[in-house]
């Protein structure tokens, strides 16, 4: 029992921290991509193309390979390459380009006419980002974060298996090495519950933010 609590805690820490960091870096990157694209409000095509290519390259690396490549970075930032805290680094690094792309797509869904209206009201581009672009895209952004977190739960299980701890580590130890199907099942069920909670919570938050259909009167 203690094992499961500890492993779940480790998974929550890995997933929570790397989700937070990936959104903190990925969302601004997504905003930059939207603004600097050739049709954007601050077109900087060379900058856009460089970021675009980097994101595509990072996204095409399988996570397990990326993790090994990122080991030196973990050592530099955390002081070691394995363990729960150190694993936050590759998880975040893998998620950042994903988040950037998914935020970019969500922000692009904001109607250009609405942005025009904001500018016509006298907004600077910076003000427009915080008062129109992000608020208007918020439900889609929340949906993007939900998908990201679920993705990271999956990656964290993989990372756990190669030295990160957490539920993935537990599943490998009990399920693979000790052939204990009951404990394996428990690890699987906890993971499923985690993903469902994230999915359910994300969906509920997203729906509560939507204003594009008539609201049910209270």
């Amino acid at each position: 029992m203690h094992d499961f609590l500890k492993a779940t805690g480790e998974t929550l820490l890995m997933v929570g921290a790397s989700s937070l960091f990936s959104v903190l870096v990925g969302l601004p990157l997504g905003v930059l991509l939207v603004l600097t694209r050739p049709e954007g409000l601050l077109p900087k095509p060379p900058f856009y193309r460089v970021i675009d290519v980097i994101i595509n390259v990072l996204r095409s690396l399988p996570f397990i390979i990326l993790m090994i490549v990122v080991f030196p970075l973990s050592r530099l930032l955390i002081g070691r390459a394995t363990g729960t805290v150190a694993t936050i680094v590759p998880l975040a690094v893998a998620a950042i380009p994903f988040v950037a792309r998914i935020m970019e797509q969500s922000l692009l869904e904001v109607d250009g006419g609405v942005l025009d209206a904001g500018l016509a009201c006298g907004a600077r581009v910076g003000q427009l980002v915080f008062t129109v672009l992000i608020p208007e895209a918020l439900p889609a952004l929340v949906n993007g974060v939900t998908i990201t977190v679920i993705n990271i739960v999956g990656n964290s299980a993989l990372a756990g298996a190669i030295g990160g701890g957490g539920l993935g580590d537990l599943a490998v130890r009990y399920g693979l090495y000790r052939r204990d199907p009951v404990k394996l099942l428990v690890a699987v069920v906890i993971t499923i519950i985690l993903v469902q909670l994230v999915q359910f919570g994300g969906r509920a938050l997203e729906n509560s933010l939507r204003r594009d259909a008539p609201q049910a009167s209270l």
Partner: protein
Amino acid sequence: MGILTVKNLSKSFPLEETTLKAVDEVSFSVKEGEIYGLIGLSGAGKSTLVRCLNLLMRPDGGEVWFDGIDLVKQPEEVLREKRREMGIIFQHFNLFMRKTVFDNVGYPLRLAGRNKQEIKARVDELLDYIGLTSHAASYPAELSGGQKQRVAIARALALNPRLLLSDEATSALDPVNTELVISMLRRVVEDLGIAVVLITHQMEVAKALCDRVAVMEDGKIVEENTMEALFLQPKEPATRKIVRGFDEDIPLDHFAALAAGPVYRLGFRTDTVMRPLISDISRRFDIGVNILAGNINALVSGDVGYLVVSFDAESEAASSAIRFLQESGVEILKLTNGGDIHA
């Protein structure tokens, strides 16, 4: 010099092989308190032009004089200030979907740095003006098209602009809501005395609101006149195309086939529209007049009408009749020679 003067404004877009001149050397001037119409069919460059007027889009060349300064030469900082004196409403309203009606209308005030009480006072006043006080806490998705456009009008008026740009503001509305928005715009102009640049492809809208209009085709202004003159004697083919779109549903070649003799379009001004001129010429010159089409249009300046007629034959009497009509103040336009078309 009017409140807005545009000189030689141009804007092109690169296409696959050529460039599209969306706005081509356009010049016009709008007076204080005037409703100036820019009409033209889809693709004539109207919407590009309006985006160049508040510099949401940088024109390739030309000048946009507003309030004594050429906006084209101003840095972004000054443009932002000037945009606050220039409201705009759009075809698809472009309201902020995740802001309430109150916050939509208050948005320009918030950007301008007004405090909470000032914003509340002004927004309440505006919502009262557009008759949507009870919808302050609603979101745009809960409103009808006409209500959305009224909210957009309130937002555009929030900072007391001196000029309102209206980009196809009624094109997405049904006839009832179109009528509502038209009367709201008319009220705005009467109450606040602001000038309006009204972009539309709907003649009905221009007819109900505009003092003067410019007709756009292929990025150029091909004809500019008072609404009355445009109706009486549309000179350019493009104008006639638009004018015909709403007052002559029957194509010219149909007239030509119908009538043996030449076909004329007679334009009646406000002062001649009520006179029985056709029976006059029929009696006086003893000729038969065949009326092929006709209509009366209620403009801002008064009623104007037109008739499309042909005479029995091209004769001395017909020429005299035409001369008589001309002397009576009727605008004559020869549409066909009977058989062939000179449209």
